[in-house]
């Protein structure tokens, strides 16, 4: 029979001439009897299992006994299953949590329209932006950010529309015909945009009018678009003319300045807002660069008064550098030149003509020789 659970027992009143024999017959059949108590000469209480009651109902006539259940069994048992509510409520809470979870997770992302290549690109970008299956559902303003990002990232995209239906998204894309600028066939000459000494030339089309080591002035024709002198054949001259060009550059370099570096890799923190009022776990980093994206929490279609914030924190560090070494000065001069003359130049010679130190900066007057492509297009006048 095994150990009976205390709460499975039911109290029964037995009335009859010889209830002892009746009880003993139950015990002999293998059902234990508990808590036998006399009420009066003809009746007593016993506690037995439901199975034993079934047997008692069958055999009571043979012993001239009547039995009476004290309580309605089902109610009684439920009442005594004291700890059952814990498991019930645990289950209810679990189901609610699962629903909340499933209501806030992107279920599917469909991309409609455009060519398969475009859809593939869009899918890739969406994955990078975090709009994919299994991610948290986005807020509306995040969606417009995604639209913007998509438009920026993919050139062929003419139109993108995001629509949200619960936790599934449909992205409608439209492709542009890529605009290719028509090949410029207009007849042009190439002229010098700076005065300099030619170092090397590479002419694709056109008739060169200068040679290496020639000194040319600003505005001189380098390559003619007219293939023959006084001829009718005019072409779009193309080529590269690298010349030595001199510059005189004034630069002012601070000796000591502060700058801030931003940590490239953000650290991510999450916080909660309840009822638009209470913030929990909000990171307290006023000096740092923080990108915060907010996601509401849904229960099915209803938005709960809870939102989750994701903070991507870029730590900002103040840096202060003093330039008192010549080497650092050099580097700074190079930076300044790149800033003033463009990054494609190739400095071949530099001389500081004049250097003047203030308390916190250096004023430089420099003479620079660079290799530079001096070609500039000029239309051939076809008026006559």
């Amino acid at each position, binding site marked *: 029979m095994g150990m009976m659970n205390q709460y499975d027992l039911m109290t029964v009143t037995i009335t009859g001439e010889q*209830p*002892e024999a009746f*009880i*003993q017959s139950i*015990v*002999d059949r*293998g059902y*234990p*009897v*508990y*808590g*036998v*108590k*006399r009420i009066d*000469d003809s009746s*007593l209480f016993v506690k037995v299992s439901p199975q034993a009651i079934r047997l008692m109902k069958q055999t009571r006539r043979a012993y001239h006994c009547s039995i009476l259940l004290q309580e309605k069994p089902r109610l009684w048992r439920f009442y005594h299953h004291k700890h059952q509510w814990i498991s019930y409520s645990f289950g209810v809470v679990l189901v609610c949590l699962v629903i909340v979870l499933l209501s806030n997770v992107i279920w599917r992302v469909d991309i409609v329209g455009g060519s398969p290549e475009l859809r593939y690109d869009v899918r890739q970008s969406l994955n990078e932006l975090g709009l994919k299956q299994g991610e948290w559902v986005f807020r509306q303003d995040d969606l417009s950010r995604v639209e913007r990002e998509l438009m920026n990232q993919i050139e062929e995209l003419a139109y993108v529309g995001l629509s949200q239906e619960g936790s599934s998204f449909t992205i409608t894309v439209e492709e542009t015909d890529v605009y290719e600028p028509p090949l410029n066939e207009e007849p042009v000459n190439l002229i010098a945009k700076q005065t300099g000494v030619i170092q090397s030339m590479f002419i694709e089309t056109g008739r060169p009018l200068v040679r290496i080591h020639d000194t040319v002035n600003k505005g001189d024709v380098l390559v003619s678009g007219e293939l023959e002198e006084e001829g009718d054949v005019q072409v779009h001259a193309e080529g590269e003319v690298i010349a030595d060009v001199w510059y005189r550059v004034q630069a002012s370099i601070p000796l000591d300045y502060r700058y801030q570096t931003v940590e490239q890799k953000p650290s991510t923190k999450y916080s909660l807002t309840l009822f638009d009022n209470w913030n929990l776990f909000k990171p307290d980093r006023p000096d740092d660069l923080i990108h915060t994206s907010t996601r509401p929490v849904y229960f099915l279609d209803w938005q709960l008064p809870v939102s989750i914030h994701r903070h991507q924190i870029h730590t900002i560090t103040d840096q202060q550098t003093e330039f008192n070494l010549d080497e650092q000065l050099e580097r700074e001069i190079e930076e300044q030149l790149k800033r003033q003359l463009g990054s494609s130049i190739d400095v071949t010679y530099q001389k500081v003509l004049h250097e003047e130190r203030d308390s916190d900066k250096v004023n430089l007057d420099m003479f620079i020789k660079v290799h530079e492509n001096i070609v500039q297009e000029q239309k051939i006048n076809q008026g006559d």
Partner: protein
Amino acid sequence: MSQLSKRVKRWLSDQGQLPKDIILDYPRITMIGQIHIYIENHQGLRHFSSDQVIVNQSNGRIVINGRELVIKNLLREDIVVEGHIDAVNWEA
């Protein structure tokens, strides 16, 4: 014949250091003060009232007298009686 088997059993339990209650099929009775009596290896409940419990055993009956007696457990071979126990008698 039964006399002979009884003798053999008694000799076995004496010489073989075997528990007498098992060899001789006697009930084993454990009491805690006057409030609790535990009888193993009984032969059935014969009478029960608040002041008297009679239990069959292999050769006779055990009569428990007392007040406010309650049978806590009644199993096929064991019985636990609680209450105020005044006397435990053997009747052949």
